[in-house]
């Protein structure tokens, strides 16, 4: 075997490997994209044809009745959009701030109660009171039924994200920076807001994205605490409609009651239209956060 040939084979091998990798990734991407395409297609399909022909990636004729119904018939949906948006924006800003504010002191080596606060966090991760106490706390003790606070408060802090943030601080924020800040006469608050936070953007973006998704997708808190239709979040309106069909199938099947209930189950195309409508805004959030993930993780503030 001459060396040339071996180079060739290795090149070939890498070409082959590359092709295989490409195929794998193309397949994977398709597996992610196609379901969404199908959902969009179904949402634009005519309900009768769906029952007759099944699902198609390309509907025979475009039918927007599902969307028409969605936006004309339900004022709730438009309101729910507003609720979801405002809760997500307010909640995310507050949550990121709170998480950073908790993570910062427990990263500081000169903070006396560091251990205690670490431990307290850990406890919340390991044990939870369970659903009923949680519910009682909000409803009877804080009396937050039917209020926006009930949608925002439960997600405000998360032990896991606090640990992530703390670890990030430990890895990227040098002690010397804080020292120099102090020497220059900056207060604790100023050090935190003007020195620490600006170079921690990557972690804030990460946590921010997670909490955004959490708030946007949350329906459970609405289910627990909200009875006023004007305060329903978008996801709750949707889950109600979508779970309706399942409920009839599973809970009532064979109980004789099933035949008495006049189902108002939304049609297939309507359900898919709701899915499309609800993932819309959140799709635009990703590119916004994207830029923080790629840069900055290696940024230092101290000249080597």
């Amino acid at each position, binding site marked *: 075997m001459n060396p040339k040939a071996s180079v060739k084979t290795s090149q070939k091998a890498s070409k082959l490997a590359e092709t295989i990798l490409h195929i794998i990734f193309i397949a994977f991407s398709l597996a992610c994209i196609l379901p969404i395409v199908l959902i969009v297609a179904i949402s634009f399909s005519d309900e*009768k044809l769906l*029952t*007759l022909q099944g699902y198609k990636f390309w509907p025979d004729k475009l039918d927007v009745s599902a969307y028409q119904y969605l936006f004309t018939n339900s*004022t*709730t949906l438009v309101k729910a959009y507003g609720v979801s948006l405002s809760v997500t924006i307010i909640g995310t800003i507050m949550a990121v701030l709170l998480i950073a504010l908790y993570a910062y002191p427990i990263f500081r080596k000169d*903070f*006396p*109660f560091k251990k*205690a*606060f670490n431990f*307290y966090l850990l406890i919340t991760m390991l044990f939870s*009171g*369970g*659903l*009923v*106490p949680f*519910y*009682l*706390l909000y*409803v*009877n*003790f804080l009396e937050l039924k039917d209020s926006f606070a009930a949608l925002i408060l439960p997600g405000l802090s998360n032990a896991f994200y606090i640990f992530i943030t703390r670890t990030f601080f430990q890895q990227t924020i040098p002690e010397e920076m804080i020292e120099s800040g102090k020497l220059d006469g900056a207060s*604790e608050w100023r050090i935190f807001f003007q020195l620490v936070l600006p170079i921690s953007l990557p972690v804030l973006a990460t946590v921010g994205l997670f909490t955004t998704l959490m708030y946007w997708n949350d329906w459970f808190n609405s*289910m*627990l605490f909200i*009875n006023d*239709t004007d305060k329903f979040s978008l996801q709750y309106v949707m*889950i*109600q*409609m*979508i*779970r*309706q069909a*399942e*409920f*009839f*199938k599973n*809970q*009532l*099947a*064979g*109980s*004789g*009651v*099933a*035949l*008495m*209930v*006049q*189902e*108002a189950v939304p049609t297939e195309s309507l359900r898919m239209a709701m899915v499309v409508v609800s993932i819309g805004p959140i799709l635009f959030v990703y590119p916004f956060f994207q830029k923080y993930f790629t840069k900055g993780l290696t940024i230092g503030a101290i000249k080597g």
Partner: protein
Amino acid sequence: MKKVKGYGIALAWLTVTMLAISGCSSNAGSTGSPNVEPASTSKPSGDNASGNPDISKYRMLKVYTVGNFPQNDSKEVIAEINKYLKEKINAEIDFQGLPWSTWSEKMALAYQSGEQVDLTFAPNWADFANNVSKGAFLPLDDLLAQYGQGITETLDPRFLDGGKVDDKIYAIPTNKEIGESHTIMFRKDLVDKYGFDINSINTLEDLEPWLQTIKDKEPGIAPIWLSGSGSDTLGYFDKTRPSVAENFRYELVAGAPAGIVLDTKTDKMIISSMESDMAIYRMKLYSDWFKKGFINQDAATTKTSAEDALKAGKTWMKFGSDKPDSDKEDSIATGIELVKLKGNDPEISTASVSNSMMAIGRTSVDPERTMMLLNLLHTDKKLINLIDFGVENRQYVKVEGTDNFIKLPAGMATRADTGWAPGIEWMFGNQTLTYLWEGESADKWEKFKAYNEKSHKVKSFGFNFNTVPVKTEVSVVSNIIKEYRPLLETGSLDADKVLAEYNEKLKANGIENIRAEVQKQYDEWKAKQP
């Protein structure tokens, strides 16, 4: 530095208080079943012996129910109801209409957290027995005697067994059909086209020539449409030649997994797929029909219910209840004219008298007033129609020259357009006081009466299997049943093969233990019967 210390102390204090709070509330909540003394005598407040209840104090009663909520016009309808209730019993209702999808979770939390619950929909299929044992509802015997005369006068006494637990009444059933019977409905136009005679059908086998005709002459229409283990299985219409000949000797057992039935001849519990000739015969019949192409070929997997398939023109039948005028109701609901087969005689089972009941919560602010409200629901025509159909000339209009017939206002196609169509007619009070839709028979409620009189109690009426001693087996077996039911009930695969496999699995997972336990409880229950 001083500042920092201040914050530290504040935070530490906050931590302590938060721990204390969460500790306290978890103590309060985790006890699960509040130790409520069963109120042997609920003291009526300010009852002045003459039976004239004191209603001078205004009350706001919280009424929980489930249906197609939220409805657009709720506020107006409830306001109208409250206007009326205020002058009647000096109370108003805070109406909590919950959607089907989240109702059970929300109610569980409401009962556990001690929120105010005055009147609540509490059917047997929604954890009723469990809620009673946890003390969620008040016993109603005394209240009923005092403020519910209207109920006792109008309600068939057999109904009251439905809400009884340990000989105390905990819920009042809705006055509707007392028994259950099922039927199959067909498109009237096709029945007429081929000159079929509805009255000639007495058993499933009699249907075969019809099915053959439809299969040959109406391509694209499935003679029988089944979908998985949805609510539309042939099991609803259980008339086969052997079962009619044997006079329906097997009964389902309330609370037990569907695989176990009672053989009324011998009083023994039977595993239907192994020992009941009739059940096995039926599964073989389906399998035979499937082979002949009478059943839609994707029956085991399709998610399209018979109703949707009917609307889309893929089939010509649907299953339904055989209560009076059910064919007319379903014709109105589907927009397709239907005719129904003659079902078997209605049977009163533990489930049928208790599948729609109203209970009064332990946390009610005024049980007496709530009972009065319930009494009104059973006796007051105006109130019940307000709740069921909404406001006159807003949600419906009276048909010219009649007092009892209603129709949709001009320009509205369905009830959903009117802004009040929760579909709760069968949950509230007395159904026989409600208006009739145009097209229903004028004597519908008389028919109901006759239907109720014709109903007979099943042998195990009143027996309820308590699954606790064999909980794990029941959950495993229930899953096996769920998995195999679609296959067995749609005939998609060869019956002999599937049955063998199914029985094998049931045996391996403790069906015998369940059977023994059901038998034991049933014998004990039977010994106690007068």
